[in-house]
């Protein structure tokens, strides 16, 4: 499992997670479209694909197939590591 801290350290990767929070289950094309049209992100499709690979390695994004299309889903479970390590005091 990759490092969630490194995965979260990049603003574009955080934006990808934001978009998956708004609508889960996006294709690479949809993620690229949303970043470009809604946030003015100018990264190439290849760069976004690499960002997704880092997020997937950290367990924050899962992929599965719907028909022949690969979709990306948010998985926030690894974030628990943060509050387990540094508990939020009430």
């Amino acid at each position: 499992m990759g490092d969630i801290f490194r995965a979260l350290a990049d603003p574009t990767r955080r934006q990808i997670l934001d978009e998956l929070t708004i609508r889960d289950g996006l294709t690479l094309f949809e993620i690229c479209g949303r970043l470009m049209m809604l946030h003015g992100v100018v990264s190439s499709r290849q760069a976004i694909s690499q960002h997704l690979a880092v997020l997937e390695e950290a367990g924050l994004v899962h992929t599965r197939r719907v028909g022949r299309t690969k979709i990306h889903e948010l998985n926030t479970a690894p974030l628990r590591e943060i509050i387990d390590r540094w508990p939020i005091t009430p």
Partner: protein
Amino acid sequence: MPIRINITSIFVDDQAKALAFYTEKLGFVPKNDVPLGPHRWLTVVGPGEPDGTELLLEPDEHPAAKAYQRALVEDGIPATSFAVDDVAAFVRELEAKGVTVTQPATEMGPVVVATIDDTCGNLIQLTSPA
């Protein structure tokens, strides 16, 4: 006379199936249907646009065509895009006709987009003004 776009094409895995989908589901109108070896020179036009740009339903028999289609579909990339007046309403009609919608109507800045599966190996994007 300036140059103009008279035709554009899309690869399909079966021309008869494609003609049925593009006319019965999407509402295009047959234009040319000429036997051409084992295949057909098969085009459709938009309803009310008999002299508009033709869409050629082109056999995907070249191995590279199939690989190209598969790679686009895997990443959710539409093979082409068509305009409608109201994407949300159009997609509702398509769903009622049993068409698979892979991306529901979504506002993207100045446009509303949706993506459907044309059953012939492609994703198709539909757009209307937001």
